[in-house]
């Protein structure tokens, strides 16, 4: 800055910026920190401190509170543990099938709903958003009954002759996974749709007009305009959905309880079982919990790379 040169001496004399006295500045700093102190402290105590403890525990083994250090034993066990590998596989299957399907469905819905000439828009929006009000446990129990062997879903499918005998939605390893995926999609599609709807309202309509004049079809408009325009919000929702799916617990616990066998069990549920259902092995449970942390980091990085600014 070269202001002093341009200012005359008398102006300079008026200028001495009232620098706050040292004690006052210190006081202001202290006030600022005291506003953020409680929250920072609590997050330290209830998030970061437990993560450090979990890291230490992941090198220990034993039952209940009697833990002793075992080095990397837990980590070696991890890669030889068929149940752990199954839960990772299950969780990743949920993730790579459910998240894209749900996001595409939510995008389609938001585009259709964004049409200005559409009637009963408010009704459709509220109806599709409605599943968000249910608690994960409550809707899981409802889905468990709907998809029971003699439940409404099978009854309907048989009535319209789509299947000749009841689908084993809860007891067949393949269909049980499908049931879980359908359930999560039911619960969260409307939620994601609301994000896209609000983002679409900020998209300049003239772009679509221009595309129409150029002869772009509705599908071309969707993939060439809508998706690129909504990229940041799609990235945001796919990361939050990924983090949510990697932590999946309530649904699986209440719809299939992880069964049949371990074919629907998720990593979170395995941690729960290791700690509170089987003979408690907190050390190994902590090791497994780091696997989720690592998966979250990996998938977030992949998505940032995929959704980043490369054209």
């Amino acid at each position, binding site marked *: 800055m070269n202001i002093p040169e341009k200012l005359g001496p008398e102006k300079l004399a008026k200028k001495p910026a009232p620098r706050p006295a040292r004690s006052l500045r210190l006081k202001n700093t202290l006030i600022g920190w005291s506003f953020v102190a409680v929250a920072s402290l609590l997050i330290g105590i209830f998030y970061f401190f437990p993560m450090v403890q979990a890291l230490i525990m992941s090198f220990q083994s034993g039952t209940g509170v009697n833990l002793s250090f075992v080095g990397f034993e837990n980590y070696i066990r991890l890669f030889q543990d068929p149940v752990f590998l199954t839960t990772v596989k299950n969780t990743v299957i949920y993730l790579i099938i459910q998240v894209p399907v749900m996001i595409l469905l939510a995008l389609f819905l938001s585009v259709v709903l964004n049409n200005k000439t559409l009637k009963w828009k408010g009704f459709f929006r509220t109806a599709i958003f409605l599943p968000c009000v249910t*608690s994960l446990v*409550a809707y899981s129990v409802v889905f468990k009954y709907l998809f029971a062997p003699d439940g409404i879903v099978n009854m309907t499918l048989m009535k319209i002759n789509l299947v000749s005998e009841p689908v084993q939605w809860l007891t067949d390893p393949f269909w049980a996974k499908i049931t879980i995926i359908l359930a999560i999609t039911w619960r969260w599609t409307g939620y994601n749709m609301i994000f896209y709807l609000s983002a679409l309202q900020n998209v300049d309509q003239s772009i679509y007009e221009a595309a129409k004049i150029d002869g772009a079809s509705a599908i071309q408009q969707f993939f060439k305009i809508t998706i690129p325009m909504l990229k940041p919000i799609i990235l945001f929702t796919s990361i939050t959905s990924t983090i949510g799916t990697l932590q999946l617990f309530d649904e699986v616990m209440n719809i299939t309880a992880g069964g049949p066998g371990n074919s629907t069990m998720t990593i979170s549920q395995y941690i729960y079982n290791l700690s509170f259902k089987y003979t408690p092995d*907190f050390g190994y449970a902590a090791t497994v919990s780091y696997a989720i942390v690592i998966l979250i980091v990996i998938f977030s990085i992949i998505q940032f790379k995929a959704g980043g600014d490369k054209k």
Partner: protein
Amino acid sequence: MKSSNKVIGYLFLSICAIISIFPFYWMVVSMTNTSSDVTRGKLLPGGHFIENLKNLLQTVDLVPALTNSAIIAVATTVLSLLIASLAGYGFEIYRSKAKDIVFNILLLSMMIPFAALMVPLFRMFGSFTPILPFIGIDTLSAVVLPTITTAFLIFFFRQSTKMFPKEILEAGRIDGLKELGIFFRIYVPTMKTTYAAAAIITFMASWNNYLWPLVVLQSPENQTIPLLISNLGSSYSPDYGMIMMAIVIATLPTAIIFFFMQKHFVAGMMGSVK
């Protein structure tokens, strides 16, 4: 839009709307039917509402569970809002390099899955039990404490504070208000809608929370609503009418909030992406 596209659009929306609403319809209808009617696939309201309600009240401790859930959800909401808004305000108004670093570290906690925290937290609260029994394992406080501070909510308040007209703060200082007085007398009243949105998302998350209460609560008298529903749902010979009654009652508070405050609810969701 071409008319054929329009028909497809309406068809698509209608199917999705029916699928979205059907489980709710089924829940509400089934709570008025006997268990065998529900199994038979009856989709019309019946006359067993009172009977199902009576059964439910006799079979499980519904009122205590509702009370526990309400105490936990209200306490969590009040404390969360206070702590997170103070912090969000502090990070934005008294911004400094060091505080920005702290803020970014706090944001990292959003990546931590709860499943990774539950074992160390369980042990932490276990160690509280002998010295501070009122916040130890199997207390409502133990459910509340780890959930009252989320980086998300701090982030949410900080983002909203960016829109706050800071000149008002100067005016408050000139009027001789202390810093905390400015916060409570000026900031809080002007940010009512932000608080409403934050309150809704926090209340709903707390009311519906399942995993941590499942881990930390043990005695039946401390049971919350999701735990009660989960127990009912895993019974071997379920009374469907009665269970649907419980599910509807559990969903009612959040459904009411949703219908009357949908705008604030959406604002709360969007606050995270602004």
